[in-house]
């Protein structure tokens, strides 16, 4: 185990953390963000630190960068960067290490670049801050870096503002910036989590490629065992501020020793390639029939100027049988969320029909649709933003049915029963959303939707914001609910692995169109369209033939 490594960092270790304890301010959930953690990052290796939210992995990274907020203090231990202990180092000296000896890239490339500075100026700044080069030599170096990270037309890119770049391109710029001074260590804090799966695959490849070429040492923080399988040489598993397992990637993935690691690996949604056993229903008539649905976004150009036209949903057709789940899978901008919003009439369609129980709801006015609204319910992505923080859970659950004419006493009894059903205790009724964890909040969101006894549930990225172990529980809950109530579901997600867990059928969307539709076995094992093949191939940690490198012994 890690704690037994006592020797002072030998020269083949780039980063050595010993007995590091970081104290949290009073009044927090825990007293320590990380407690007594020790690990080494060997030169020229990729070390993955994996854990769920609250495991202390990001705090560890920030401690190494010397970027902890003032209220969070390192109370004991040492961090050796390239042989020098940085704990209690004067801040000016620490600053001179940042960007030069150790660099960092972050999770969300959309917000990690200054929107008011050109890409070139932001890369130049790293070198200027450390007094390296002349403006001319720095410019040359910046162009070199832009080429190195695989950005097209570096000369043009140099003068570009971040908002013009896609997420993947911005993450490449971040990497170029981090590499500018050829640091010994690169810390990557979930750098692919916010990216589409195909982009994620490209960025992972870029990081691995650069690491090999430069012999750099990389500390890669992630919550995704698929990513670990793709990239790691060695792995540290963290849980609630402690290291529970530490070893080579092979060892941790193939034969995890700690129960938590086993649980985490087992919770990773797997591409089974097996179809779900569908629910037997008496009524086979489709509950929902969508015909040539069209939605086009137009922006700008009221009087003058050019109008921009974006076809978000383009001639989409499908039908859904009672008690079945249709997965809608696609990357950002594919139109999958617009489709969800059209179906629940949060958005007006421009053409086509939505036949709900045989009646075309696309043409109904808001007032005409209102009586039908309880029957189509939505579960939202962000369990933190989708519940009103000033209402009690009881109020959130009962306000809808009461507005639709239920007596309050009856609604309250139903709400309490539903809370128990989704795995919360009855005491939750009088409490406020902030008293619950993300997973519990999503359960509240599901209970809220079920209060109306809907015929159709639309779940838009309903598990994307959750940790994998919680994700698995919520998916199980949705499956159970469907089997009990016979509700039909449309499950919108960017994650093919999640879709394969819960869907009877999957529709793959690209640029507003459905490019392929079929059962999971077809989508994953025998994809018909080139785009689906590309998507499936990009899933981290999966072999193209659909088998997993990880033995599922959890």
């Amino acid at each position: 185990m890690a704690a037994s490594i006592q020797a002072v960092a030998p020269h083949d270790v780039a980063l050595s953390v010993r007995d590091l304890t970081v104290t949290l301010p009073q009044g927090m959930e825990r007293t320590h963000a990380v407690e007594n953690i020790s690990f080494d990052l060997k030169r020229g290796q990729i070390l993955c630190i994996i854990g769920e939210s609250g495991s202390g992995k990001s705090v560890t990274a920030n401690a190494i960068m010397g970027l902890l907020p003032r209220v969070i203090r390192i109370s004991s231990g040492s961090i050796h960067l390239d042989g020098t202990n940085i704990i209690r180092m004067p801040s000016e000296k620490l600053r001179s290490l940042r960007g030069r000896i150790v660099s960092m890239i972050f999770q969300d490339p959309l917000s990690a670049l200054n929107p008011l500075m050109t890409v070139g100026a932001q890369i130049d700044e790293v070198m200027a801050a450390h007094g390296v080069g002349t403006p001319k030599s720095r410019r040359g170096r910046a162009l070199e870096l832009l080429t190195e990270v695989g950005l097209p037309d570096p000369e043009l890119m140099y003068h570009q503002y971040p908002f013009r770049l896609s997420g993947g391109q911005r993450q490449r710029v971040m990497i170029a910036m981090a590499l500018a001074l050829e640091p010994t260590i690169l810390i990557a804090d979930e750098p692919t989590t916010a990216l589409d799966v195909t982009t994620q695959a490209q960025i992972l490849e870029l990081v691995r490629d650069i690491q090999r070429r430069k012999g750099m040492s990389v500390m890669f923080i992630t919550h995704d065992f698929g990513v670990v399988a793709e990239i790691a040489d060695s792995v540290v598993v963290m849980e609630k501020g402690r290291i529970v397992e530490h070893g080579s990637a092979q060892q941790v993935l193939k034969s995890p020793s700690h129960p938590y690691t086993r649980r985490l690996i087992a919770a990773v949604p797997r591409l089974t390639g097996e179809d779900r056993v569908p629910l037997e229903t008496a009524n086979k008539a489709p509950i929902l029939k969508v015909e040539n649905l069209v939605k086009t976004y137009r922006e700008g150009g009221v009087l003058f100027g050019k109008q921009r036209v974006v076809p978000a949903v383009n001639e989409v057709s499908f039908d859904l049988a009672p008690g079945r789940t249709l997965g809608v899978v696609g990357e950002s901008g594919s139109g999958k969320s617009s489709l969800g919003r059209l179906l629940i009439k949060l958005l007006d369609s421009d053409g086509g029909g939505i036949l709900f129980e045989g009646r075309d709801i696309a043409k109904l006015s808001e007032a005409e649709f209102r009586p039908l609204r309880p029957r189509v319910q939505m579960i939202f992505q962000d369990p933190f933003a989708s519940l009103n923080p000033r209402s009690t859970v009881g109020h959130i659950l009962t306000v809808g049915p009461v507005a639709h004419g239920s007596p309050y006493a009856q609604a309250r009894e139903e709400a309490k029963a539903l809370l128990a059903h989704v795995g919360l205790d009855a005491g939750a009724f009088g409490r406020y959303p902030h008293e619950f964890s993300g997973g519990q909040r999503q359960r509240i969101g599901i209970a809220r939707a079920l209060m109306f006894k809907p015929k159709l549930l639309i779940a838009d990225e309903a598990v994307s914001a959750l940790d994998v172990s919680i994700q698995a529980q919520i998916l199980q809950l949705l499956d159970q609910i469907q089997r009990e109530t016979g509700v039909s579901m449309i499950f919108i997600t960017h994650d093919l692995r999640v879709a394969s867990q819960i869907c009877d059928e999957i529709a793959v969307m690209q640029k507003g169109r459905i490019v392929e539709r079929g059962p999971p076995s077809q989508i994953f094992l025998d994809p018909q369209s080139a785009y689906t093949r590309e998507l499936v191939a990009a899933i981290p940690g999966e072999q193209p033939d659909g088998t997993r490198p990880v033995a599922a012994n959890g």
Partner: protein
Amino acid sequence: MRGFLLNRLSQSLILLLIVSIIGFVVLNLLPGGPLAQFGLDPGMTQDDLDRLKEQLGLNRPLWMQYLDWIWRLLQGDWGHSFRDNAPVLSVIGRHLFATLLLMGTSTAIAIAIGTWIGIRGATHRYSLFDHLATVGAMVALSIPTFWFGLVGIYIFSLKLGWVPAGNMYTIGDGSVLNYLHHLILPSIVLSLVHVAIWSRYMRTSTLDAISQDFVKTARAKGLTERRVIMKHVVGNALLPMITLAGVQLPSILTGALVTETVFTWPGMGRLFLDSLGYSDYPVVMGLLMFSAILVILGNLIADIAVAIVDPRIRLG
């Protein structure tokens, strides 16, 4: 960008038209009417008044008067002041300089000091400085400007004799120094409230910017804290402030009413009050149009300034 400007310009013209119609109609509906002031003259007979009405074209239907008025306005003839017996534009112009001088100075003071206090309060959040700034802003906002003005005059003019108690210059002495001497007290009093407002907005805006991811990126690059704040935080924190400044531009001209009265400053605020009291309708209408144009201009300038600073708007 060109399409955007054309759009804004056409919207502005429609807005101006609506403001002018409403202003014109409401003013003419007021009891007394444009000739009330002349009626107070004891030597005036009803015949004289009727003749005057005929001369000024006030006996025509309202819509004809309006069309006539707006047509002249477009040609640069804003009418004739009843009170000053001078063209409205030149009356406004005379007072405009005084107001611009006072408001320009106090706004410059307010923005400079307010921005500094706001940034420092945000970067040293919950420090003694931050608490003092918060309390100070509350005090400045809750005490009326005229009180500060009177106390200022009492202490610095009457007791200490450092600065004059009022007026823009000493008659017979038009030197720059003399103007500046008169400017000190009113501009400081006037800026108090604006410093308070500006510093509060700037503090919030800076706190917003400071918690952005790109600030963390800047620190991770090894930039000095000074550069992180000056280049990455302040630049982004000032963006919303530009819009705020644009919205405040018109109040710069009309908002000095109290201060101008306390310090007998011959500016636009005083002109508006006096013209209303005298029922000098052409001047009141002129001021109304003038401030409407300023509102539109202020917002337009702010929009253009934001576009210049923010590439997402300029190029997007």
